[in-house]
């Protein structure tokens, strides 16, 4: 029973991983570009939630929406101000641009909020739910379920709507998309907005359940990257399966080996995967 409890807890967190990994995979799929600041977007989403709660009050729906909107705007602005200019440049410039961005965001947060761990004040989401003997803290449950729904929503947006088709068209062939009247710049900015927005939203959801500090972004960034690698680059459903798997593996290794080993096991599995299947678990060669 305890084991089941551990696995369910891991899966709930894994759903949130899936949500922010989807953003990373979207950008990779469209632009062959890894955003090294992606984890920082998650971290900013957490602080955005904190600021909204302390200044405006309001429930999870409000601060999650606010975090998503703020990060959407930030993501689009970063695309126009920085990414657009390095996208055709040398690879070193591409890597440096988001890497430098990650440092700026992380240490600005460090400067403003200090290195201390903080958590959200009690929100409407508290207490524990007992389902068939499983004890589930409501914040974790809500975050996991919401993340699952939002990841599914993002997938539907990409595969079932006109905007999604336009995004995929730009990913498929930029020039051809321009010929049929799609503006690739707008679509790529939209992708950055969606990626950052979903990361911010994921951050706000996690903020309800876990304490954090400015340095969590580094870990989340790596987790997102590993999730995307496992799931195959460019695939939202892949990110979902992989995110759930990473969450469960983390929870089990923390349970069996001790909390410090939760990241170690995931990173080690990732390195092993590089040896055995460099194209990812679900990816094609």
């Amino acid at each position: 029973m305890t084991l089941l409890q551990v696995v369910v807890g891991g899966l709930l967190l894994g759903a949130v991983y899936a949500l922010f990994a989807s953003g990373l995979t979207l950008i990779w799929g469209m632009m062959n570009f890894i955003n090294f600041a992606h984890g920082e977007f998650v971290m900013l989403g957490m602080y955005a939630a904190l600021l909204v709660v302390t200044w405006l009050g309001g429930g999870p729906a409000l601060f999650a929406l606010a975090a998503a909107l703020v990060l959407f705007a930030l993501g689009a602005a970063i695309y126009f101000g920085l990414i657009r200019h390095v996208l055709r440049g040398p690879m070193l410039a591409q890597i440096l641009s988001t890497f430098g961005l990650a440092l700026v965001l992380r240490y600005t947060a460090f400067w403003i909020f200090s290195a201390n761990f903080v958590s959200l004040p009690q929100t409407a989401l508290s207490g524990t739910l007992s389902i068939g003997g499983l004890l589930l803290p409501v914040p974790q449950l809500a975050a996991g379920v919401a993340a699952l729904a939002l990841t599914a929503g993002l997938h539907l947006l990409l595969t079932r709507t006109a905007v999604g088709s336009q995004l995929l068209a730009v990913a498929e062939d930029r020039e051809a998309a321009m010929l049929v009247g799609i503006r690739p710049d707008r679509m790529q900015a939209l992708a950055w907005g969606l990626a950052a927005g979903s990361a911010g939203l994921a951050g706000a959801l996690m903020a309800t359940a876990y304490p954090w500090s400015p340095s969590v972004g580094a870990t989340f960034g790596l987790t997102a990257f590993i999730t995307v690698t496992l799931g195959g680059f460019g695939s939202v459903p892949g990110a979902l399966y992989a995110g759930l798997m990473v969450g469960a593996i983390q929870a089990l290794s923390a349970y069996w080996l001790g909390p410090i080993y939760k990241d170690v096991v995931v990173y080690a599995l990732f390195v092993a995967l590089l040896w055995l299947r460099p194209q990812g678990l679900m990816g094609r060669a």
Partner: protein
Amino acid sequence: MSSDHWRRAGAALAVAALLAYPLAASSPYYLDIGVTVLLAAISASAWNILGGFAGQVSVGHGMFFGVGAYLPLLVYTLWGWPPMAGIPLGMLLAVGLAALIGAPTLRLTGHYFSMATIAVAELIRILVGTWGLVGAAIGLQGPATARGWWDLTFRDETPYYYIFLGVLAGVLALTHALQGRRLGYYMRAVKAGEAAARSLGVASRRTKLAALALSASLTALAGSLYVLKTGFVDPDSGFGILVSVQMVIVAALGGAGTLYGPLVGALILIPAQSWANSWLGGGGSGLTFVLYGGIIVLVARFEPGGLFELRRRMLRWRPERSRAA
């Protein structure tokens, strides 16, 4: 005088300035900045072989730096050997590590390779932090006072300055020699386009592995020098992500893939960092790293070739275009 004479005179002046700096440095503070500049230049030059010349942007070179930093203090702590006996061991271990992780990661390209190197470095950092033999989270300590000259433990930093200067000269000479050799040409070919290089018969994987091994061993040497000077290392100062990042920034600021780029980058960034630290109230506030990140973003956005490229463009009318790598 021709421009060649000017260049030679400038080089002689630069060498003289580097040699005379400890005599001119009015306080230990300035001497320490000089020593730190040299160390940053050595590690960034070591990174530059793989990241600059061969075009494989590693952001996990801290793993080699850390190995080099730990081994001297490990042989001292375990067996009481002089720390410098750990230098060749550290370099060897770094080459072994390079071979081990190079096989899978070098199959990856571009961003993917960079991210994978971060993951490996983080994995090692966390593991070292839990391993009692190497001091776990607390780290390792060197000899507090020298038992003899062979401990290379000096109160005054002047000897470190000249040792580091000698090593930097060696690393630069090696890099220069490499540029004119087959491996150097292969590395540039792989950087310019791996598929094309392979189609011309360049053994791209072997080239990348050789560049990684060389780069790793020299980075480990830099780590050893660092620890000889500080006499202390912990997982963050050895393997931390900021260690890896610093090498990339220093090299990229001066010009990745140029011989003197890392030295120029270090000459600018390290004093700037130390002044920022004293103005902004120490590293505690994190503003120094905001500055760091800001510099990288600006370099990437406006001058991805670094300051050397900027200079080359400003002097475009000169007949040195043919040297462009």
